[in-house]
């Protein structure tokens, strides 16, 4: 009996010691920065689906959970219909806690309707990590509403390396060099341009890059906010410059009618198929993802990038046009505040950046985090460029800047159909913009 009692006592003692040690470990863990006090569930509606960013964003959430284990973030992948889904949810009175909105114009609309909660608590985190221009991006009537988490560099041109080699041309630095190179590529037997005009936003991106590089960031912002009208002579110049590309119809793969039928994805596969059917695609850094998933072209030997050529020399000659994902909140509680403050820090961005396919304006993310040279060349300028502007069509009211077949998207498709009718398009753009801004 005594032996059993000894054994039992020993077992109890060891169990209690282990428990005590474990307890000591958790308490020492809590001292190391884990916050168990903040708890809750956050519903997050996002654009990224399982094939386009959801696993990477989940890595960001997992990193967040290391510091805040009791906050559960329920990410719901909605895909490209997010604006529609969100608009209906907001109108119905049951929006998610947080959402990812790609258009500042839409964010402004929601903020004006009073649906968003300001994220003023994240101001200091943002100030420590982002240049003032980025904080301005998410600010409406003086209050901070949105955190620009992910950004895409739209001032990038992707080209087919073998086509350039056959033609004997090198990536152009200026626009006039670009036109000469395009002529040489055409003479070598391949059309120079692959345009995905069925998706109107590719055409607006081309116009915006041209306008930015001809007139600079200040005038770009003025046009963006409709302080300059679309009938302004500066717009005429930019449209005429753009006509030099889209009017060169024999140099576009598929001609004008092909350009109108090919969407963005197809324009990329056309340029990087084997053999390549065209030489260049004027689109953002996310083209890389389409190339690797849909074609067999390899980096450096099959495809490479160069910065959008400069037009007017000056400080904005290599300005960067970005598009991005703005995170907004529809409610306010300690869990949401913790998550938003975390997302503004460099480790959050790095968790995704090191996997590629991600750009950020966070100036504390080093260029060395990007996995390869091409990604570095396209993503690093986002946070390091001196002059940064946001995609103009995204900043417009969505009725003008982000509606399929109407507004900017539809009118630029009409411009692609008849590039000689510059003044006609200008009048229609101005009419559509005026109507959208009036509302």
């Amino acid at each position, binding site marked *: 009996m005594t032996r059993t009692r000894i054994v039992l006592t020993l077992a109890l003692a060891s169990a209690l010691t282990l428990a005590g040690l474990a307890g000591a470990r958790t308490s020492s863990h809590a001292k190391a920065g884990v916050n168990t006090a903040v708890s809750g569930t956050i519903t997050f509606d996002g654009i990224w689906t399982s094939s386009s960013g959801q696993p990477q964003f989940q890595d960001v959430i997992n990193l967040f959970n290391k510091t805040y284990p009791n906050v559960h973030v329920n990410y719901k992948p909605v895909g490209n219909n997010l*604006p*529609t889904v969100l*608009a*209906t949810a907001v*109108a119905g009175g049951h929006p998610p806690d947080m959402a990812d909105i790609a258009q500042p114009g839409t964010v402004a609309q929601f903020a004006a*309707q009073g649906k968003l909660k300001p994220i003023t608590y994240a101001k200091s985190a943002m100030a420590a990590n982002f240049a003032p221009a980025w904080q301005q991006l998410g600010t409406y009537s003086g209050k901070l509403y949105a955190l620009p988490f992910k950004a895409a560099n739209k001032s990038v041109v992707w080209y087919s390396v073998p086509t350039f*080699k*056959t*033609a*004997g*041309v090198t990536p152009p630095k200026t626009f006039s060099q670009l036109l000469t190179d395009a*002529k*040489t590529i*055409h*003479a*070598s*037997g*391949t059309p120079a341009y692959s345009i995905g*005009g*069925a*998706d*109107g936003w590719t055409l607006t991106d081309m116009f915006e890059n041209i306008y930015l590089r001809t007139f600079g960031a200040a005038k770009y912002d003025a046009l963006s906010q409709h302080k300059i009208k679309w009938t302004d002579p500066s717009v005429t110049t930019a449209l005429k410059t753009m006509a030099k590309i889209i009017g060169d119809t*024999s140099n576009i793969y*598929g001609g004008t*009618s*092909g350009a*109108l*039928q090919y*969407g963005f994805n197809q324009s990329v596969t056309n340029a990087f198929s084997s*053999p390549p059917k065209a030489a260049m695609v004027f689109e953002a850094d996310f083209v890389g993802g389409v190339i690797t998933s849909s074609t067999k072209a390899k980096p450096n030997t099959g495809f490479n990038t160069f910065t959008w050529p400069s037009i007017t020399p000056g400080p904005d000659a290599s300005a960067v046009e970005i598009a991005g994902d703005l995170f907004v909140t529809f409610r306010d509680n300690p869990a949401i505040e913790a998550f938003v403050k975390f997302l503004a820090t460099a480790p959050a961005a790095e968790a995704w950046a090191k996997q590629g396919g991600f750009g950020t304006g966070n100036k504390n993310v080093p260029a060395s985090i990007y996995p390869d040279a091409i990604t570095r060349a396209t993503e690093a300028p986002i946070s390091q460029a001196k002059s940064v502007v946001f995609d103009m069509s995204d900043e417009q009211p*969505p*009725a003008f*800047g*982000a*509606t*399929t*077949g*109407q*507004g900017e*998207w*539809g009118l630029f*498709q009409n411009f*692609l*159909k008849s590039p000689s009718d510059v003044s006609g398009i200008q009048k229609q753009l101005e009419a559509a913009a005026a109507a959208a801004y009036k*509302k």
Partner: protein
Amino acid sequence: MAAPPSGAESGRLGRYLVGAFFLAPALFMLGVWMVYPAVYTIVRSFFGPTGFFGHWVGFHNYKTLFTTSTLTTAIKNNAIWVAVVPAMVTAVGLVFAVLTERIRWAVAFKTAIFLPMAISAFATGVTWRIMYQQDPGLGAVNALGKTISGVFSPAGVLSSAFPSTPTLQTTSSGALVLKTPVMPGGVTKLGLTGIAPDAVPKGAVQAVLPASKPGDVVGVVWRDFKPGGGKAGVVEKGELGLPGVTVELRSAAGKVVQSTKSAANGTFDFTKVSSGTYHAAIGAQTFAKPFGGFAWLGPNLIVPSLLIAYIWIWAGFAMVVIGAGLAAMPRDVLEAARTDGGTEWQVFRRVTVPLLAPVLSVVFVTMIINVLKVFDIVYALAPESEYAKANVIALAMYFTAFQGAGNFGIGSAIAVFLFLLVVPVLALNIRRFKREV
């Protein structure tokens, strides 16, 4: 005398209650998901763009409906759909039903024709979008066209080539003529670019500028391009000659005097040329473009393309319904007609079709209702750049209410308008069912 009424009444009341109890779930769902939204939409159409109701605008939304070009195009397109599709579907279904009635493997044929009904309209739209691609290398329809046209008018050897210098000019027939005149003993140069390296004819070697021969006209036709461009109009190292090209010697008036083929290094030699001025040219057949494909998804053909795809789906449905009607038709009438000396066509036109009239009208009216509401096939098949041209009422409602513009007032007005279009047709159908019963 007094007792039975209360018993009968309570029995009737009991029966009503039981009936109501069984109907209640369905009535509840109908009320929530059909009656309430319908009433709300009708009321909403008189209000402004945003908000649960917004501000009152009266009939303004309906006025916009008939004055905005996108919406009038949609109405016009739906009118085209209604005029063409029900008639075509019924006709094609009738033809198939009659043809597959008395053949072997009837079931197999009927299944094959009915199969398109098994896939969703959206999937059909995506599939036909791929098939309608303009590039014959990608789109099945144009690939077929290319095969057929390749038999009758084969593509030229250098269909994508164009001159490297302005002195070589295209004529109206597609030939290339060198403007610079040449006389016997002269050397002429025909430089072409726009030829991909793998499109150069086989056996080509470095181009050579030949020495002049008295009494002959010599020259070279070559790929005037080397990496970096090179000098236009000058034969340089690395530039290949174009063998097998038919070069013509034309008189000053334009008549072809001689023609010859170029050698592996691109040189050609017109011998025994009498004195005079001539122009060297390359015949149009060298530049004959291969079939480029019809732009099925372009602005001119997008509506017909949609109609074809839609008829492809629904012809099977029409065939099955009409086939059932055919099977139920009394055979003796047909036999009588045949013995009376009618040809198959007369029997078909004067006996079969009138007897099938009720079935045909069922199919016809069903198709009208379907076509008024058409949405998914247009959304999936038409490229974004053609939405304005191919617009239909349901698509316009979706874009106006739910896409960027977010104008729920006009969107509701469009929905009400569509409802008003469909209601008469529905009423017709219901009245017919009642009559038959």
